């Protein structure tokens, strides 16, 4: 598989993952571009025997997103701005009910990330844990916690 084929096949997955992770589609747009630029430079290191291109690209995307968060925190501290509460973008995705959209607002970025990997992209526990750099048990715990929070928020909304 060439890089161009991998990029075309998995762009939506990478973009979706970044959108879930950041809660901001505009940021996801920028980060997705950076992800594929970095992935092209690292493409010679990709080994299909170790995993699919989809997983590998998500790993690169995660690194790009974390670098972005770190630099944003540094920038915010430097400019001494008031901390802006993390807010999940409204109308985040098509097909989500209004209540679920609102409920997603209570999740942290880490919780949204595990939901994106395990539920939206349908990675298994081991693969998602690999991308996150945590154990499969930890990954499952985070997912359960996130889903429980959503359940409770939807129950309250109802």
């Amino acid at each position: 598989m060439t890089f161009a084929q991998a990029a075309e096949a998995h762009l939506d997955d990478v973009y979706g993952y970044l959108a879930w992770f950041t809660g901001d589609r505009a940021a996801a747009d920028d980060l997705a571009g950076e992800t594929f630029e970095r992935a092209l430079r690292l493409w010679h290191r990709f080994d299909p025997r170790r995993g699919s291109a989809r997983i590998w690209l998500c790993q690169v995307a995660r690194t790009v997103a974390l670098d972005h968060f770190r630099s944003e925190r540094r920038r915010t501290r430097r400019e001494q701005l008031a901390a802006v509460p993390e807010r999940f973008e409204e109308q985040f995705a098509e097909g989500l009910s209004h209540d679920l959209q609102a409920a997603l607002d209570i999740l942290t970025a880490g919780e949204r990330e595990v939901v994106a990997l395990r539920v939206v992209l349908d990675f298994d526990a081991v693969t998602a844990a690999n991308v996150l750099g945590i154990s499969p048990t930890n990954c499952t715990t985070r997912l359960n916690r996130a889903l429980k929070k959503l359940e409770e928020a939807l129950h309250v909304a109802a």
Partner: protein
Amino acid sequence: MSQRDLAAELRGARITAPSELRLRVRLIAAADATPTRRFTWRRALVVALPVAAAIAASIVFTRPSDHQAVGTVTTRQVAHGAVHGALPQVGKAFGAPATADSAGAAKL
């Protein structure tokens, strides 16, 4: 809402990349279209080792063995003797002096 329904709704939510992003990524990917020759030590070894082995094998298998070397010397000696044995005969045929003394006596 059960967790299963929740998961189903989350999974069904569509997030597709905007067309501008898709175009940008295609341009990025196009940079990979031109093949570039990259030298790596690993590639060099993959090529060099079989070549070296082939050269070594050709040297080993074409070099004459000891038995063959003796036979070659013997043949050479015979050939040498035959050549030098024939030379006096050739000299005689053209009237060349057999020895230096007879050559001196003939002048006087």
